[in-house]
């Protein structure tokens, strides 16, 4: 990789300040994504600010919900009793991702920030607007079997590859960040990631130098009826072709409220307001779920090689809801 400066931050202010001061600096958490990308020459920071010493790995009850430190490891998060009990959807989503070894290294903040797995993004000899704005999108008319069916632009058709975030979207999480000026702000997770538009180089709305400190989950009524479904090219250790985070709050046989978030279909986790609306107040039945699935995929715009995601998406939504409702 290219030479870079390495510093280890002792507190959040120093960390955020150091990154803010250098437009080519980045935070280093578990390193499972950033280091790979640096080896591939895709990311070229000239400074890494190691944040692993910051006291940001606590998982604790807060405001009726739970606050998860940005530096808590994915494994610790998935296995925490509070999460397992109150947010099993999050546990399922996390353990559906990567491998045990990686989850032991990966942090929650880094996970939110992970970059696309588009093949063109990874190959510096290929055009890619996300990696090098203005060079074109290799995937738009290339190999795009794993790419987006929602929300893409001519500039970029990549998907956000992560699993954990799909659950966070369903659970109405809020991302707490700290700016270099010391000010904290919160970003509803739904507004965290971006669609590519004309600026695919920007994955999300975090400003340079802003440090994610925690992810907050409000009290949830979905613990009893939720399910994370991931369809991939092999049984484990692969990114989702399509994933669905489904959560239901049931009232007898009826759905009081629902969450349907699709992963692997857009530049961000794709929360389907249409599906959720189609479910609210309806009986929790295969028929309602099918209608919701149709609603969820109605606006899909597949590319040359990923039309299958539309049908797969529908079936995955139905299956995830059926599982959430414990009908299968």
């Amino acid at each position, binding site marked *: *990789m290219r030479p870079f400066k390495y510093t280890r931050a002792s507190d959040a202010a120093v960390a955020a300040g150091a990154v803010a001061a250098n437009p080519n600096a980045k935070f280093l958490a578990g390193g499972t994504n950033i280091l790979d990308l640096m080896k591939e020459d895709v990311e070229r920071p000239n400074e890494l600010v190691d944040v692993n010493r910051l006291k940001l790995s606590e998982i604790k009850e807060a405001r009726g919900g739970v606050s998860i430190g940005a530096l808590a490891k994915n494994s610790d998060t998935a296995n925490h009793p509070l999460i397992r009990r109150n947010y099993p959807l999050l546990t399922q989503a996390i353990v559906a991702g990567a491998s045990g070894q990686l989850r032991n290294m990966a942090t929650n903040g880094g996970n939110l920030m992970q970059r696309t797995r588009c093949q063109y993004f990874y190959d510096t000899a290929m055009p890619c607007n996300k990696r090098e704005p203005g060079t074109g999108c290799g995937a738009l008319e290339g190999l795009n079997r794993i790419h987006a069916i929602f929300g893409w632009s001519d500039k970029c058709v990549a998907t956000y590859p992560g699993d954990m975030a799909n659950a966070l979207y369903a659970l109405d999480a809020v991302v707490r960040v700290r700016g270099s000026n010391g000010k904290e702000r919160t970003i509803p997770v739904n507004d965290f990631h971006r669609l590519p538009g004309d600026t695919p180089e920007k994955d999300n709305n975090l400003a340079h130098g802003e440090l994610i400190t925690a992810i907050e989950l409000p009290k949830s009524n979905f613990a009893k009826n939720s399910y994370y479904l991931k*369809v991939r090219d*092999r*049984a484990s250790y692969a990114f989702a072709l399509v994933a669905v985070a489904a959560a239901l709050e049931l009232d007898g046989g009826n759905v009081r409220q629902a969450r349907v978030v699709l992963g692997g279909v857009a530049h961000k986790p794709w929360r389907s307001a249409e599906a959720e609306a189609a479910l609210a107040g309806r009986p929790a039945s295969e028929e309602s779920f099918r209608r919701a699935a149709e609603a969820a995929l109605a606006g899909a715009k597949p590319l040359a090689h990923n039309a299958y*995601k539309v049908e797969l998406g529908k079936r995955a939504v139905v299956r995830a809801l059926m599982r959430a409702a414990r009908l299968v």
Partner: protein
Amino acid sequence: MPRYIGKEMSRVDGVAKVTGRAKYAAEFRAPNLAYGFIVLGSVAKGTIKSIDTSEAERAPGVVRVFTHLNTPKLGPKANTEYAPPRNAREQDKSFRALQSDRIYFNAQPVALVVAESYEQARYAARLVKATYDAEKHTTDTEAVRESARSPSQGPPPKPRGNPEEALKTAAVKVEAEYRIAMEHHNPMEPHAAVAAWDGDRLTIFDKSQEVYSVRRHLATTFGVPEANVTVVSPYVGGAFGSSLRPNYYPALTAMAARELKRPVKVVYTRTQMFTGHGHRPYTIQKIALGAERSGKLTSMIHTAVHNTSTFEEFSDNTTGFTRQVYACPNLFAPTLIAPVDLPTPTWMRAPGAVSGMFALECAMDELAYKLNIDPLELRLINYAERDPESGRPFSSKALRECYRLGAEKFGWKERRMEPRSMRDGRLLVGWGTATGVWGAFQSPASAKITYRADGTAHVTSATSDIGPGTYTVMTMIAAEYLGNRPEQVKFELGDTNFPRAPAQGGSQTTSSVGSAVHGAALAVAARLLALANQDESSPLKGAAPADVEMLDGRLRLKRDPSKSVQIPEVMRRNNLAEVTETFESRPSEERRKYATMAHGAQFVEVKVDPDLGRVRVTRAIEVTACGKIINPKASHSQEIGGVVWGIGMALTEATEIDHRFGRIMNPNLQHYHVPVNADVHEIETIFVEEDDTVVNPLGVKGMGELGMVGIPAAIANAVFHATGRRVRELPITPDKLL
């Protein structure tokens, strides 16, 4: 009664491997070692217009940047003093890096940056800037399919009988087209070399399946006598064919070392492996089968087309085994090749066979459904009692027993014929079968044994152990016939200082090298007998070498073990601390009267999620008949590995090319999916041992490739049985089943 042969033995190199004592190519050190990093090009065809190395050369630690502009010409043409090859087969046209501005394939090496450290070399490699005059390229085999031709090597394929006519008049016909994706071997160990020159003598540590061929290649490349080149490759972390041919990196490494007058190491990255050692070609196959209503095949026409490169011919003989599997009087089975702007393909585990049998065995399944005959029954109806190609008898063929035993273990008779008729809850259950076939090959091989008075032995042969357990099996064979214990045998391989052995490919190592070790052990015994019988009072007087055996330090008469001599005593009398014998084994004349093949039957259960298109291979039973099993432990492991490979080929593996750029787009393990543990469920491997006295003295056949041959077809057939969907294109990913 054999003491070791046929009994389970753990790998003799196991401890060295798990403790890190086993040294792989990249782990060798040399004083003043420099590190090379390869720079890959970015167009598929054309010429290098400019290459700017100035920034790289200024980078810290950089020793030299090699490009086509400053790399000496290598190879037979460059070296007039080297005798030209006697025939085309010997001609080594393999790709050599940095020889001209010509680009033959995308991600071709265009520079080698050598620096004081690996990191410095890798960093500076990023600073090399090349521009190209690109030309119109073709990487899509589909696009050049019509221009495919027979390979120029070997006789042109001849039809048997009159297949076209027989097809026309056949009562039942199946015609279909099958495709397999290009695949890469992806062994765990990346290819690497460490090269050091001493004057005009070269020593190179390499990852190789055949050290002698690397030696020949390097001698040709540098115009030095073969004797000047030493190739060392003691451990190989998987190769699967990717180290059968000399790849470009050993010559590149040795070139840099020679120019810089210091040792150089080059290690491929995973990405570099994808254009650095060949691949299983993309293969299109067309099959037409004609049969009587009874199921008897009357015609088989099987045409395969696969890619080769523009600078070399390669054919994996995809349709080769089609000629020998079923009894059928009319047949035509050519394999054609079409050049594209990609690296030359190469052999990859079960080359040709697994691709060809995927198509043939799926077509047989399709025929079974057309005829409404049980797929296993159809295979029995067409069972070949003799080799249909040569008419010769098989030296042994227990395939019928494999079918029977496999079917029984699997519970095949419970199978319902109709697709989608078996379920497990919401999941569709499918059972599929296929036949596996491979040759029982043998090549000339030599081994040397030094047997010492204390009963220990040093055994060497320049073979390789890419994972099948060659170290162990040779140790067992030596111990068996030297009558000592495996702990007293030290077997070494992978070094051109050892006697010549063929490539570890084609599943021929135990038959070839094992026969050599066996022969060398018998030669030791014969020598000891001669020495013993110099003594007038020898109890073995009059015995022929075939009459005696070594056991626990004694040489004794087989038929009367009470007649024996103490070997240490014989040696002491002759003032010998050790005796050394080298033996070359060759395939026997007897073999020519027979067809020598290994067979297997595979039974596979899949469970398919009909909504999500997910396929799980929940059960696989593989019964193989491959002669005698020397080490059941390693042998089962070979066959289990074969099944896993078959799962990968059937369900997950594909090298993807963006034909607009002619570039492989998934040259890494995140995008190229090999099966993981979760993809692998119950696998049972069973051997039906054959007592084959023809194939070689040990009665062994190959198994390493055989284990995967029928698996992709069996899985595809099971998927059809489960879902009613005939997927004729591998891999069967979820999108293909929606």
